[in-house]
């Protein structure tokens, strides 16, 4: 029993799901659901269909060249069963997956940082250009004038004090 990958969207195909198609040159195509099967029949290129893994990998949205990805690969040389090896491998898989997800998340974070910078710049520009929509230049003018009057008054007081002294 094997969990295959869909030849259109690269999602896992569990046993009892999906459809297989065998072409005349003996190449087998597995599909996880009718959506992928129909898209294939329409001759769509998965590298151009946004939601597939093929697109994401070819457009650099996901981690591609990494040592942690080389562990899970279909190998054609069978290895004789050895209980110890299998047990150790099962534990190893867990660790490998941890590292893989960590690296993957880090990759995505890095990718999204660029967006943050662009956002801050856009905000600053927006505020500079269109501040007049929320704050008129006359705002606070009255207060300012009042303050100025107060300030004028105070030094006068000082002068009086000085005169007195």
């Amino acid at each position, binding site marked *: 029993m094997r*969990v295959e990958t869909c030849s259109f969207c690269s999602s896992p195909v569990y046993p009892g799901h999906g459809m297989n198609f065998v072409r005349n040159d003996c190449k087998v195509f597995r599909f996880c659901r009718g959506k992928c099967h129909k898209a294939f029949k329409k001759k769509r290129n998965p590298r151009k269909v946004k939601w597939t893994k093929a697109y994401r990998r070819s457009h650099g949205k996901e981690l591609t060249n990494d040592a942690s990805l080389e562990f899970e690969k279909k190998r054609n040389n069978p290895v004789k*069963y*050895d*209980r110890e090896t*299998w047990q150790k491998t099962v534990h190893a*898989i867990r660790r*490998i997956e941890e590292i893989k997800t960590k690296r993957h998340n880090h990759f995505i974070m890095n990718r999204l940082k660029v967006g943050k910078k662009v956002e801050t710049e856009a905000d600053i520009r927006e505020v500079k250009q269109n501040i007049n929509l929320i704050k008129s230049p006359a705002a606070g003018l009255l207060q300012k004038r009042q303050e100025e009057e107060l300030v004028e008054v105070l030094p006068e007081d000082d002068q009086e004090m000085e005169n007195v002294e």
Partner: protein
Amino acid sequence: MSLYNFKKITVVPTSKEFIDITLSKTQRKTPTVVHKNYHISRIRSFYNRKVKFTQQNYHDRLSTILTEFPKLEDVHPFYADLMNVLYDKDHYKLALGQINTAKHLIDNVGRDYTRLMKYGDSLYRCKMLKRAALGRMCTIMKRQKQTLEYLEEVRQHMSRLPSIDPNTRTLLISGFPNVGKSSFINKLTRAEVEVQPYAFTTKSLFVGHMDYRYLRWQVIDTPGILDHPLEDRNTIEMLSITALAHLRAAVVYVMDVSEQCGESMESQISLFNNIKPLFLNKPLFIMANKTDIVSKEELSEENRKIFENFENEGISVFWTSTVTGEGIMELRQAACDKLLLDRVEAKMRGKKVTGVLNRLRVATPIQRDEKVRPPCIPEAVLKKRAAMATTANASLSDIGSMTMETDERKKTERELELEMDDEYVLDLQKWWDLKNPDEKHDTLPEVWEGHNISDYIDPGIFKRLEDLEKEEGLREEAGYYEDERESDDEEMKEIRQMAAKIREKKALRLQESHLRRKVKKPKLPGIVANKKKTPGEMVDKLGELGIDLSEQRQAHFRSRSKTRQILGKRKRSMSMDVGESRSRVRSQSRSRNESGVRDVAMQQKARKLEKISQRKMIRFGKAGESDRHIPTERPKHLNTGKRGVGKTQRR
């Protein structure tokens, strides 16, 4: 190739049918209507057409017969001779010749009468001419009755002839009647030839096919031949003689050692000597059949001497019995091998060989060192061979000590299953060859969290995992995974908030403008429209923008209409009290929706009517009462399409 055409010859109709078919065809395929008052040339061409059509038809059909029947000169001599034996060459040729002459005669008739038609000056005359022409043609055909019947019989018989390829590998079986030739062919091939105790059961040639050494072989069973001179032979015997004469095959001469066929050994020998000239250049084998009745040892001295003579002459003798099957396979092997050798030699002598030889090359590997590399035979096979040899030796002296073999054979799963009955479980994992045999019956995990475990199994996985862990450690130390997210300082936060507010404001403005532009309502005059904007609104709006207007200077923002109203009311009350007429500051102006309206009920009704009248304009997006613009004069969805049921009289 004339081989297969025998089955594809078209049916030869009887003369009556022939005539009927052609005449009815003429009737159907040519125009039928003609009148006296037509122009004479038209009448002539009408009747000419009929004559020509009939002539053409006869000509075509007779030509097909002539071409489809094989010419005896063109086919393989075997078939030519065969047909001669069966149908008599002269008769056949005569028949075809007569058909040919008939064809020519019909052509002549047709030609003559088309010429004569020129002199027909009335419809009646032309009609009689055409009648004469067709009549003559049909009489010619009537005279061919016998010929056509004969040809039809020949055709039927020919199509049932067995398809013998004269050029491939063939085994020919001949001998006296009832010696066992048909039983032999039944044993060798899948042909089911009739086997009966009376002589001349087989009356014609039969072909069977068998496979030997990945090649197809023909085995031909012939009817029995009796011992008398060639001239006295009947048709059936002639068939075998023809086959013997023309086919390049290996000949198996069958003899009956038990003399059950009714002929003694001497007569069989004498027949053999008589037909010996036919066996020239052919590999010959003697098959001493029916050894189950009279075995080799029980034979008399003289007979045995006969066979020894054969051996001395170089003809191999095989002692067989078609009933028990002994000796048949050896005979087949020897005959086929010899024939193959002969054929190869003949080909080597021929001209085509050099062409093939040029393309053939036998490559042998060059010895590169002194090491001897014999073929690899596993030990088990060698042991078995030794065992077979010893048992073979043992069986010669003591038949019955075969117990050793049965013990060495393994017990099959089926036997186990039958033994254990209900408890049996098919466990293929018990055959596994593992380092630690008690791990054989482990249940293997296959999938974990959507990943196939077998994809990870690799001899070098642990080393690679170690490297990976090291790398991870290095990365963590270098601070690769630390979150460098700079948290915004106060200023940035404020800027972001303001930017958000600005965007919101922009969106609202856009929405408002869309609403305004979407439906062009009838515009109310400016005074009334502006009345809807109150100073309170303005204060709010400016407050949003940050300007604080909560002081006395508001006094200037009051609208004029309000003051006027107050004035107007004061004026009226004053005038009612005093009764003086005062000069008006401005003429009393009331808004249109209040002028002429007595009370609240009337006001409400007036408002209602106003709304009703505006409804159509608003719904159809009209700019005003006079806007009669129609954006699409004939919308497609209203003016096309069929009704499911009913009439499309109005749209």
